[in-house]
């Protein structure tokens, strides 16, 4: 138990001193996970909107599949991305293995289903409300989707936070495709795993606390923005 207490102290001294290595690792974590989130959102949001707004045969199957893919095992995703990016794989020539790009790709695969499923759920409940009005006004699908996205932006933000949480906390996939190479692909979670395997539990947990604080900060920031915005358009 001592260890947990020491780790908390360690995390604070880490945050106080903020040495270059810690900053490097934190920044890489943020860069990788935020980039992955943006890409996942660019891919996932249109898919979610289409699934929410259109009806076609096989839609339900796609929809349930995306739900199931929220539970894709990171290690499996890591292995598949590894095989694709490996020199002997189809995209080997791009030399992406063991780079941050590879980690971003893996996280995009993990985060996209979360964005699709949660955004679809919230867009769909908006759609139930708005559908008749939008149809009646003669909105094109693109117009309708943009209205749904805009008026549902606060719930969509929550979905994105869930996706970001998954990305920043994830270790299995980035470990495999990034290789946890010092100064190149070492992020917070892989550092924690490494320190834990060295038996240095204080450092591992201290970093863990830093990571959790980071998540909390981002969540509170988004929450702040959200409640400022919501106050203006309270329903």
């Amino acid at each position: 138990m001592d260890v947990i207490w020491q780790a908390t102290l360690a995390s604070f001294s880490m945050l106080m001193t903020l040495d270059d290595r810690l900053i490097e690792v934190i920044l890489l974590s943020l860069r990788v996970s935020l980039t992955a989130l943006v890409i996942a959102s660019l891919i996932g949001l249109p898919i979610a909107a289409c699934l929410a707004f259109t009806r076609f045969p096989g839609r339900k199957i796609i929809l349930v599949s995306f739900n199931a893919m929220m539970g894709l095992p990171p290690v499996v995703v890591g292995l598949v991305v590894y095989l694709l990016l490996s020199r002997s794989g189809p995209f080997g020539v791009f030399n992406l293995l063991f780079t941050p790009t590879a980690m971003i790709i893996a996280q995009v695969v993990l985060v996209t289903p979360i964005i699709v499923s949660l955004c679809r759920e919230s867009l769909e409940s908006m759609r139930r409300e708005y559908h008749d009005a939008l149809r009646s006004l003669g909105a094109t699908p693109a117009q309708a989707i943009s209205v749904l996205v805009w008026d549902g932006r606060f719930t969509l933000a929550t979905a994105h936070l869930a996706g970001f949480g998954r990305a920043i906390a994830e270790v299995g996939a980035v470990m495999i495709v990034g290789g946890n190479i010092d100064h190149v692909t070492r992020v917070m979670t892989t550092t924690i795993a490494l320190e834990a395997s060295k038996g240095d539990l204080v450092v591992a947990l201290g970093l863990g606390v830093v990571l959790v604080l980071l998540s909390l900060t981002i969540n509170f920031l988004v929450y702040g923005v959200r409640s400022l915005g919501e106050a203006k358009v309270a329903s």
Partner: protein
Amino acid sequence: MTGASPLPLRLESVGLSRSGKNVLKDVTTTFAVDPPKTVIIGPNGAGKSLLLQVCHGLISADTGIVDWATPQNARALSRAQAMVFQRPILFRRSAVANLILALKIAGFAKSEWRDRADGALERTGLSRHAATPARSLSFGEQQRLALARALVVEPKVLFLDEPTASLDPAAAHLVESLIDEAATSGVKIIMISHDLNQTRRLADEIIFMHRGRIKERAPADQFFTRPENDLAQAFINGELLWRRRRSIFDGALVDDETCSSEDFNKS
């Protein structure tokens, strides 16, 4: 917006079922530019709202044909129409933003949005609520905003589902005159109302519905003076309808499961 009216709208043997019940049965009728104002009346659950939504294209009929005269593309067709729902559906935006969104979707030039929206708010008496979130307006204000949103896009055909149900007498009057104005300027009005006085004031022609069927369709004066269908007759006698039906059918009238309207006609 510009463009020709897509009328007449022709319905042929339209049927609709929900949860195994036939809620619209064999509806055959035509809505033409003339007469300008058609009012649909009938008891609760007669299928009035569903019929309006079928006409407007929000629900597709299970059987039968719904057909607009002018071969227009779907988009132009839907832009030529507007509807005010019985339960107003407003966007989570301010009142004025609701109107601006409608204008934007209808393809009006951006420079006109603000002026047109402000004009519509003024005409419906909502200017001081321009910045209020639409969903915190009072129910009557919401209903007026929904009307403003339908009028602002200058449709050719206007579907109104009890647009004055929650309005105070003065506001109801205002709305009636707005409807009249629109009709005068060539907009076809198809409206549902429960208020027989209002119907008398506004209607050029009347459709009486009961249990998913159109029971009678007649010019307004003829309908009120000499209704052919006896159910319609009972209905326009207002509270008398209730007493009469109660006395005849022993209290089972509002919920006359035991006597189909067919029986009623025969009686």
